[in-house]
């Protein structure tokens, strides 16, 4: 029987619920916006770290605690975490086969990204507030 076909998926694919999650475009755009944001931010922090060469602990902490530097650091961390979560997800979806392993890898990607991201944000805020 041939009901009106509304999509290009095979019947098997439809039953297994494979196919577009309808949220890929958002990730695609997010990937590019975070990339644009990180060009100046990453270059700034590269220079910042070079300038910190040989600095002692107090100097490093006070430089990072400067409000403008702290805010730039927060922006970079947020952009980087979004960007790398999407990038790694694409890599996993391309190369990791097998339903279970794929699910584990995709979930682990979220865990790693959020854990590293929140650790960085917490540290930057702590340094910025001087506590």
């Amino acid at each position, binding site marked *: 029987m041939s009901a009106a076909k509304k999509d290009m998926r095979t019947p098997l694919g439809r039953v297994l619920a494979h196919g577009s999650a309808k949220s890929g475009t958002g990730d695609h755009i997010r990937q590019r916006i975070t990339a644009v944001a*990180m*060009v100046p931010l990453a270059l700034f922090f590269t220079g910042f770290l070079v300038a910190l060469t*040989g600095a002692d602990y107090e100097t*490093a*902490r006070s430089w990072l605690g400067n409000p403008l530097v702290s805010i730039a650091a927060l922006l970079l961390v947020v952009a*980087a975490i979004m960007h790398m979560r999407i990038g790694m997800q694409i*890599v996993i979806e391309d190369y990791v086969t097998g339903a279970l392993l794929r699910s584990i890898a995709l979930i682990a990607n979220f865990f790693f990204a959020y854990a*590293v991201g929140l650790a960085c944000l*917490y540290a*930057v805020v702590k340094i910025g507030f001087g506590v």
Partner: protein
Amino acid sequence: MAEQRQAVERPLSPHLQIYRVTITMAMSILHRIVGVALYGGTALVAWWLIATASGPDAYAVFQSVAGSWFGQLVLIGFTWALLHHLFGGIRYLLWDEIVATSPKAADTISWIAIVAALAGTVLVWAVIFSMRGVI
């Protein structure tokens, strides 16, 4: 029924070894590998930030590891990976805007990205070593 499906001889899509290696292809593969490396590298950034937030003792531990020959090697690699992904990534942003999409222009900006990343890495570490008085 699935059993009734016959295996049909279809033309197969050529795989990697069929293609001549081009610079855009090599850069595409490298972009992913470097991206994955940077992904892991964020854990080091988190370590540095947490150490700085924690106090002089934790910071000293980080500094001793980062200052070792292996730590320095990782940091130099990190610098190159970051700049390579950054300059390589700008190509994708340009291509999104339909800039430099001809084969010749695509090759040219790929080489520019490679050279810019290497030159940037050399520049960064030349400044660092000269600030330390090593060179």
